[in-house]
């Protein structure tokens, strides 16, 4: 048997794009900067610390959820029950506190409940053929109904703020004392810290690599030995836990927990992830981008108010931004990948 001796393949130099330019963060960052500049020019009082800290504060609670949702979307799945998990968490947290439970107990139980709700979403998605969008469409209603059952339709309200509320979502006076009229909250610290941690987990660990693979090409991931089911269930549990924290932050801010708490958060966070450069089809995105996205939505909200526009326009403006940002992200990505 003989095989012809072939010529060596000529080594081919592959043109290298800058790593930063082709990372998922670049295009949402550009979009963000452009819009901040536009608002700074046209909106009165926009650059003040009070306004900026208000925007950051408004974004912080949802930012925590966006972290989980972004990771889930990168793995190729959706969770639209996040608002309901938030609502249940806020209620459970408040309920334990007003009944004299210690803050530690309240936090642990809330996280257990929220994590379990996420786990149910994950198990149903992984072990049935039902797409996660449909599974969580169902659990969205089921979980909301559970809040009705658990609360009996009542609302919990606390008049004297508890210390734990100030730790979770109180005034961040270390920073506030540096600026006049600043209104930064501790929730922002949680959001940023968790954002950084999970961005590192996503980009610097084996698990993170698997998340991208499962979303980008599940068949390839499976054939290379990745445990697709385990990766997805883990992402759902992480999302659940983050919603648990968001619920605690919500109660800590408003001292109120009721059945409708957290309603309609889901579409906002998915929009933030998309604006932040995460592909709906999975396999690409960044948590930092998602945080930028939720910041942008809060920015638009504040901007419309300060511009004196009717607040009905806010929804339309967000809609235009979503489509515009998605197009811009695609355009920039095609130029660079």
């Amino acid at each position, binding site marked *: 048997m003989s*095989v012809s001796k072939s010529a060596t393949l000529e080594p081919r130099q*592959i043109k290298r*794009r800058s790593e930063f330019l082709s990372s998922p963060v670049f295009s949402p960052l550009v979009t963000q900067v452009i819009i901040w500049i536009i608002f700074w020019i046209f909106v009165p009082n926009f650059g003040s610390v009070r306004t900026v800290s208000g925007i950051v504060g408004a974004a912080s609670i949802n930012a925590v959820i966006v972290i989980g949702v972004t990771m889930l979307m990168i793995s190729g799945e959706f969770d639209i029950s996040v608002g309901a998990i938030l609502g249940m968490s806020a209620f459970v947290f408040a309920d334990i506190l007003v009944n004299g439970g210690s803050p530690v107990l309240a936090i642990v139980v809330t996280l257990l409940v929220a994590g379990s709700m996420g786990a149910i979403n994950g198990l149903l998605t992984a072990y049935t053929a039902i797409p996660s969008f449909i599974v969580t469409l169902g659990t969205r209603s089921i979980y909301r109904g559970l809040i009705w059952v658990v609360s009996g339709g009542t609302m919990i309200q606390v008049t004297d703020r508890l210390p734990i509320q100030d730790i979770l979502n109180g005034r961040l006076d270390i920073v506030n004392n540096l600026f006049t009229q600043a209104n930064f909250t501790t929730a922002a610290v949680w959001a940023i810290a968790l954002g950084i941690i999970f961005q590192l987990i996503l980009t610097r660990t084996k698990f993170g690599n698997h998340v991208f*693979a499962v979303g980008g*090409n599940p068949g390839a991931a499976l054939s290379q030995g990745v445990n697709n089911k385990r990766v997805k269930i883990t992402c759902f549990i992480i999302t659940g836990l983050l919603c648990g924290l968001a619920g605690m932050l919500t109660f800590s801010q408003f001292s109120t927990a009721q059945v409708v708490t957290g309603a309609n958060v889901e579409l906002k966070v998915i929009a933030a992830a998309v604006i932040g450069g995460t592909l709906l089809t999975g396999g690409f995105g960044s948590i930092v981008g998602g945080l930028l996205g939720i910041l942008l939505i809060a920015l638009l909200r504040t901007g419309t108010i300060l511009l004196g526009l009717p607040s009905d326009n806010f929804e339309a403006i967000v809609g235009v931004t979503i489509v515009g940002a998605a197009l811009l992200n695609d355009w920039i990505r095609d130029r660079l990948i």
Partner: protein
Amino acid sequence: MPQVTGNATPLVKMENIVMKFGRVVALDNVDFDVRPQEIMALMGDNGAGKSTLIKILTGIYAPTSGQIRFEGEVVQISNPRRARALGIETVYQDLALVNLMSIGRNFFLGREPICQVGPLPCLNMSCIDRDTRRSLADIGIAVRSANDKVGTLSGGERQMLALSRVLIVHPRLVLLDEPSLGLSPLVVDHIFDKILDMNGQGVSFLLVEQNARKGLSASHRGYVLELGQNRMSGPGRALLDDPRLQKLYLGG
């Protein structure tokens, strides 16, 4: 080409394998083996059952009945991880590459090198970059950085990448599903050179190849499937010259 003794225990042996999908019989009592340090060609028309057989060996399907022996021991290849643990590696027809991910991350997918940073196992990025670039340079592809997206590589380069990532782990048996599909003759020659080279170092190959001439001339033995059943088997060269194969498979 290294000699293959006929009496050695087969590396992998499939006995009475039946594979049914509902009422469709994809494989019908197939008996099949690959010997140590052998290159075996698996031939057959579309729908003959070649891909199914590969997927059983690689752990994606479990056979409806029958058993598989690896080095004489009965094994359950229940998932791709188990197959890899045995030393069975596969290069799929679609290459199993994640286009949106970088070359390096694709190269090490499923067996990422780790370094401990405090309590956390973190990806060893410099190791990924270095080893990927070295392995690619070995097969003639020079990249500035393993962070470039895999989508920037040409078809031939992707094929070579998929092949070199299984060879780096020193497998016992490599399953190749249509390695020459869509590639230029020069690249195909290069791939088969690599296959022969690794065979010389002790790796067995199971080759599913549409290009019957190329496949059989590179193989020690060939095995022809038709409609899920074994039709012919024998030494590669002999099969190539066999007029029945001409009629059955090569079309005239």
